[in-house]
């Protein structure tokens, strides 16, 4: 990422692990999430029906398991859309049960500032 195409969107101190911040960058609503120490930037539009997905719950999920068994995991890594409940992997943008994915943007952290390249 060349420094001149990135936009400063937050101070690192605003985004401790588990925190989120909604920002406007060049007319786009973007959600910043600190996922267990990694900051990610996601377009606030669900690829299903354009819901404000970044207002959804951040949670874990049930991991693959045989019938009748339940294994909880990935706490803090899963974003649930507030309209229809689709689950997304915050670290990759992929939906857990569909081919569509979140639009993500490269993030850099430098000198205590979070930058997003839009």
């Amino acid at each position: 990422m060349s420094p001149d195409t990135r936009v400063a969107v937050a101070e690192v101190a605003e985004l401790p692990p588990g925190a989120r911040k909604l920002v406007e960058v060049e007319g786009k609503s973007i959600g910043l999430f600190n996922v267990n120490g990694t900051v990610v930037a996601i377009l606030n539009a669900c690829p299903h029906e354009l819901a404000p997905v970044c207002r959804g719950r951040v949670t874990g999920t049930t991991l693959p398991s045989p019938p009748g068994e339940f294994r909880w995991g990935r706490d803090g890594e899963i974003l649930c859309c507030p309209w229809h409940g689709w689950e997304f992997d915050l670290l990759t943008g992929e939906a857990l049960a569909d081919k569509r994915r979140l639009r993500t943007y490269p993030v850099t952290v430098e000198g205590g500032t979070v930058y997003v390249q839009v």
Partner: protein
Amino acid sequence: MALPYPVVDTDIHNVVSARRIQECLAEPWRSRYAAGSRGPGHLGYWNPNGVMRSDTTLPDGSKLEGSPDGLATEFLGRYGIDIGILNPAGTLHMGLSPDPDYAAAVCHAENRVVADDWLTADPRYRASITIAPNDPHQAADEIHRWAGHPGFVQVLMCSGARMPYGQRYYHPIYEAAAAHGLPVAIHPGTEGIGIAYPSTPAGYPSTYFEWHTGLVMNYIAHLVSLVCEGVFIRFPALRFVFIEGGVSWLPPVLWRFDKNWKALRQSTPWLERPPSEIAADHVRLTTQPIEEPPSSTRCSACSPPRGC
């Protein structure tokens, strides 16, 4: 968002204040309601995402669906909705209470609050008259009470039932609705609770996911009953609305229905034309939540016939 047609949201789940319902109840019902007896209870199926949208908190911390003004501004206004039909969340299940008098009282109180607090708040609001079908005569009285109010545009009852909705027991409801030109709608959520039968003919499913997917079985049973029992022959003005039950099941059910009619129509001689034609004239479905096949062209079989 200028569209060449009006946008109607057919199924807005506003939340009517329980405190206001309580105020509108006479004793002995008021004390019962205040003590927390608000219906026949739920089976405990759990939607991990919640049933209501989770992004509807207003800046002051209140919930959008609980505020007549907030819903008008932040929902109708924001999404360009010209008409919004209020189907209040929370009281439909009274129709499956074993106590029909209490159910009728709570439905009436809720309709009163809708008329006083909601229909007065914005001209885009319309509402359903909520009734409890566990006493069809009291339900018919409730329809007559509100039918003259221009804000009430349909009758609403739970889709969970203890017998299929075409049967004669329910006809006082249809007679009253047809007399006022009001459609009768059903809405899911109550399958298997209270005095209803299990949500599937096979028995109780285990999860909300399974329960929700199987709701269509109940809708199919009601549709076939309404047509076969001749409800639309007895009440030619009646229209019936299947809310929130999906749409994709309808074409194959009607194909099967028409085929069987050709062989078995002598058991329902009042059906002088194919069931699919009767359904097309009298039945409407709402589209949310619509099924999502891999290709949207697969939905073409669900398109209504020309002229509907």
